[in-house]
C-alpha cells in the first residue's frame, strides 16, 4: 500500500501480467514501476460463508477453475473460468486483474454483475466496497483510484433454488458475445424477474431490463424471443474482427435464448 501511495499513477499493480505486459510490449501503455502483489499470501485466499464467495485478488483463473469450494457453491463461475482465453493465460492471469484492466472483450464481468458481485478496494482512505457494475466505467476504465488496489471480489451466492449461467460465442482468443443470466425457475416459470447481463460485445457489460418478465413462462418461445429482443436493444455492439454491429446484435439474441435454455436445463 505504501508503494501504491508513493508511486500513484507511475506504477501499475502487477500479478499475472497477462494484460499489462501485453500492453507494455505493444507500447500502448507504460509504467515506470510494477508493484508485484503475488507475494502477499493473504491476497490469494478463496473462502465462502453461507451466502458469499470471496476470491482474493491474486487468485488465478487456473486456481479458481480447480477450486472444489467454487465448484460446489458456484459452478457457473467454474465453467466460466475453465473457458477464459487459453490454458496459459488462465495459469497466470487473475480474476481481479481481469476486472481492473476492464478489457471490454472479457468473460467475468457479465456473470459477476448478474450475481451482484462487489470488489473490495483498499486505499489510503481505508477500505470500500464497490459493485462490479460500478467498478468498470468504460473501455479500459475503472473507478479504482490511483492509490487503491483490489484486495478481493465478493460474490453473493444465488439463493438455494436460483441458477446462474454464462454462455458465450468465441472464435478468436477473446469472446465475441457473452450472456449471463441468474434466475429461479419453478415449473418452467421465472420466480420474480430474471437477471441478464450481456458482456464482451459493447464498450462494457450491459444489464438487460427484465422487469416485465417476472413470472413469465420461460418455456414459451414468445417469452424467450421477447427476452432476446430486450437483450439486443440493451447493447451497442462494437464492430471488429469478430463481426459487424448487426451480426453481433444477432448473436446477442441467440445467446440470450441459449442462456434461458441453460437455466431451464439446470432447473429440471
Amino acid at each position, binding site marked *: 500500500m505504501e508503494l501504491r501511495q508513493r508511486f500513484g499513477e507511475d506504477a501499475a499493480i502487477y500479478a499475472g501480467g497477462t494484460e499489462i505486459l*501485453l500492453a507494455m*510490449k505493444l507500447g500502448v501503455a507504460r509504467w515506470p514501476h510494477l508493484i508485484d502483489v503475488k507475494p502477499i499470501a493473504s491476497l490469494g485466499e478463496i473462502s465462502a460463508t453461507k451466502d458469499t464467495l470471496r476470491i482474493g485478488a491474486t487468485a488465478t483463473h487456473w486456481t479458481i477453475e480447480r477450486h472444489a469450494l467454487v465448484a460446489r457453491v458456484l459452478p457457473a463461475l467454474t465453467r466460466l473460468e475453465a473457458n477464459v482465453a*487459453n490454458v*496459459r493465460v488462465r*495459469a497466470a492471469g487473475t480474476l481481479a486483474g481481469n476486472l481492473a484492466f476492464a478489457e471490454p472483450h472479457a468473460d467475468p464481468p457479465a456473470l459477476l454483475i448478474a450475481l451482484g458481485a462487489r470488489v473490495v478496494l483498499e486505499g489510503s482512505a481505508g477500505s470500500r466496497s464497490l459493485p462490479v457494475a460500478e467498478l468498470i466505467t468504460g473501455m479500459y476504465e475503472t473507478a479504482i483510484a490511483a492509490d487503491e488496489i483490489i484486495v478481493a471480489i465478493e460474490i453473493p451466492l444465488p439463493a438455494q433454488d436460483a441458477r446462474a449461467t454464462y454462455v458465450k460465442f468465441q472464435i478468436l482468443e477473446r469472446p465475441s458475445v457473452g450472456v449471463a443470466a441468474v434466475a429461479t425457475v419453478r415449473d418452467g416459470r421465472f420466480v420474480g424477474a430474471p437477471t441478464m447481463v450481456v458482456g464482451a460485445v459493447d464498450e462494457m457489460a450491459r444489464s438487460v431490463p427484465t422487469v416485465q418478465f417476472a413470472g413469465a413462462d420461460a418455456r414459451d418461445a414468445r417469452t424467450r424471443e421477447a427476452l432476446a429482443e430486450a437483450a439486443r436493444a440493451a447493447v451497442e455492439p462494437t464492430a471488429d474482427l469478430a463481426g459487424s454491429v448487426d451480426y453481433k446484435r444477432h448473436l446477442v439474441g441467440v445467446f440470450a435464448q441459449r442462456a434461458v435454455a441453460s437455466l431451464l436445463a439446470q432447473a429440471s
Partner: protein
Amino acid sequence: MGRREIHLRLNGRDRRALVEDQVLLIELVRSLGLVGTKLSCDMQVCGACTVLLDGRPVSSCTTLAIEADGKPVETIEGLADGTKLHPLQEAFIDHFAFQCGYCTPGMIVSAKALLDEHPAPDAAEVRHWMEGNICRCTGYQTIVDAVLDAADQLRSVS
C-alpha cells in the same frame, strides 16, 4: 531498470542468471542456448513459446524472467532422457503430428502439462486444453491422436 540475480531450476539443473527486470522468460531461456522454445505471435495467443513454470504452462513471451526466481522451469529440451525421446515426442513422430515443426515444442510442452495433471484425458479434454496452441499445418487431428497415444504409452509404463 533494476538488474538482479535469479536462481531457477531449469530442466532439472540449478541455474543462476543475471537479468534485467524487463527481460522476458523466452529471452532468458533462448539466451541460455535453449532455442527449442519459439517466438511466434508474441501475444499469448499461439502457444509456440509455451514453457512450464512451476509445473504450469505459460507463454514465455509474456512472462518476466524474474518470475522464474526460485522456481522450476521446463522447456522442450527437458523432456528427452539423453537420446531417448519422451513418449510425447515419439507419438508426435509416429502420428505425423507436425509438418513445419514451428508450433511443435509448444504443443508438446503444453500436452505434457495436460498429461501431468490428467493422465487419461479423452479427445474432448485434449482439444479443450490444446485449443490455445495454434498449428497451421496439420489440421490438429494428428496432434490429438498423438497426445492420446502418448497418454496410453505413459500409463502403460508407469
